[in-house]
């Protein structure tokens, strides 16, 4: 039945679905996993590096993490070629906003702009949607650190922690049980407290271990990114070196080993 209604993006099916958008979301579920975690003092984004060939020469610093402006970055899951278009759009928007208002663009506004652009490909023109989901990490003065997720439909939402890409359901269930209880002291009323960046890094590695399931955790298979503020309140974007990443992986290994004992 869906056959008749799935070739055009701009047509609803009788069940009220946009099949092309749903197929685009499927494309992302085959992509490398990305985890995003909001910490007290920053944001962590970890992604699975799929090294397809040893002969590949990497052109840029990362194929997953992209800086959008001094105070925002994103992680990509899906078709990289599609993502490049959207990333450029985001960079232009952030630059133009800053030019016009001499102020950094509020993170949600940047996300909304990218999402509105994605949405127009589900309603006009007969072009296919973008096969990309993003995790946006950003800081602004009004709302502090924020984490957003967006999908090909142009829908977005803010998260404390989330996963996109392959095996995201397994990742999300792990986050549900571990986020908030991973910090040493819990508030008396039992409300969840967010971890610090170091704790968030460990949790992110744990999630990747789960989603990358069959393969052993190794520093060159993961990319760990943090966004924090330095002493002069400037936003710092940092992709961990192999050595730093290995330290986090070792810490997680030690934790899980000792947890088994107790």
């Amino acid at each position, binding site marked *: 039945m869906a056959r008749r209604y799935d070739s055009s993006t701009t047509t609803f099916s009788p069940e009220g679905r946009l099949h092309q958008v749903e197929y685009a979301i499927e494309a992302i579920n085959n992509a490398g996993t990305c985890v995003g975690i909001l910490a007290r003092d920053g944001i962590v984004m970890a992604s699975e590096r799929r090294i397809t060939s040893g002969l590949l020469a990497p052109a*840029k*610093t990362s194929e997953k993490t992209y*800086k*959008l*402006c*001094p105070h925002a970055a994103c992680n990509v899951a899906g078709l990289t070629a599609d993502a490049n278009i959207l990333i*450029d759009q985001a*960079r*232009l928007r952030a*630059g*133009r906003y*800053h*030019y016009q208002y*001499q102020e950094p663009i509020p993170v949600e506004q940047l996300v909304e702009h990218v999402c509105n652009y994605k949405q127009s490909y589900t309603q006009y023109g007969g072009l296919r949607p973008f096969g990309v989901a993003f995790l946006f990490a950003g800081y602004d003065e009004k709302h502090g650190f924020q984490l957003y997720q967006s999908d090909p439909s142009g829908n977005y939402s803010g998260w404390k922690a989330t996963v996109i890409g392959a095996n995201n359901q397994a990742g999300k269930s792990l986050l549900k049980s571990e986020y908030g209880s991973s910090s040493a002291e819990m508030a008396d009323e039992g409300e969840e407290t967010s971890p610090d960046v170091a704790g968030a890094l460990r949790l992110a590695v744990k999630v990747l271990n789960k989603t990358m399931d069959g393969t052993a955790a190794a520093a060159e298979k993961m990319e760990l990114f943090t966004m924090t503020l330095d002493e002069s309140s400037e936003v710092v974007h940092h992709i961990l070196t192999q050595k730093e990443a290995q330290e986090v992986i070792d810490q997680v290994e030690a934790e899980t080993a000792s947890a088994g004992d107790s």
Partner: protein
Amino acid sequence: MSILEYNGAAMIAMAGKDCVGIAADRRLGIQAQTVSTDFTKVFKMNDNIHVGLGGLATDVQTLHNVLKFRMGLYELREEREMTPQVFSHLLSTLLYEKRFGPYFVEPIVAGLDDKNKPFLSSMDLIGAPVQTKDFVVSGTCTGNLYGMCETLYKPDLEADALFETLAQALLASVDRDALSGWGGVVHIITKDGVTTRELKGRQD
């Protein structure tokens, strides 16, 4: 009345031994009336590039914002810093794009290239560039500035001597120009960083 002489400016950039210096006056006027004595005309674009924008003040500020925007995009896309030569070309094409309705600014670019060698360039308001090894000037008293530079300039000056030369050349030139002066600022750029000093001059 020339639109390029509406607000007033005086700027020099000079090359030294593995260093460059760029200096400008501090006056902002509306024709004869002085309005500000701390108006910034020299802008740091990155560790290796300073640009001096002299001319109509509104265009000085707008062009600075446009250049910041363009540099930001370049750095995001290319994941590296702009070199002075590239910046100078960008500025030149930016200005020519407004060929029939130009920015009333005559900029000078000073920096250290990727081999830490001095780079100097200047251009007219529609982007015709000129690259030199010794010095470049711009503003409402270029006659005075050229004269002082030709007299005082020596190649391969060290940073401290370069500062003295720049400072004396600027201060002496602006005294005979009603539209520039009211103090000065000098930036000396070496591979180790930038030293900025304010100049005490005749406050008239």
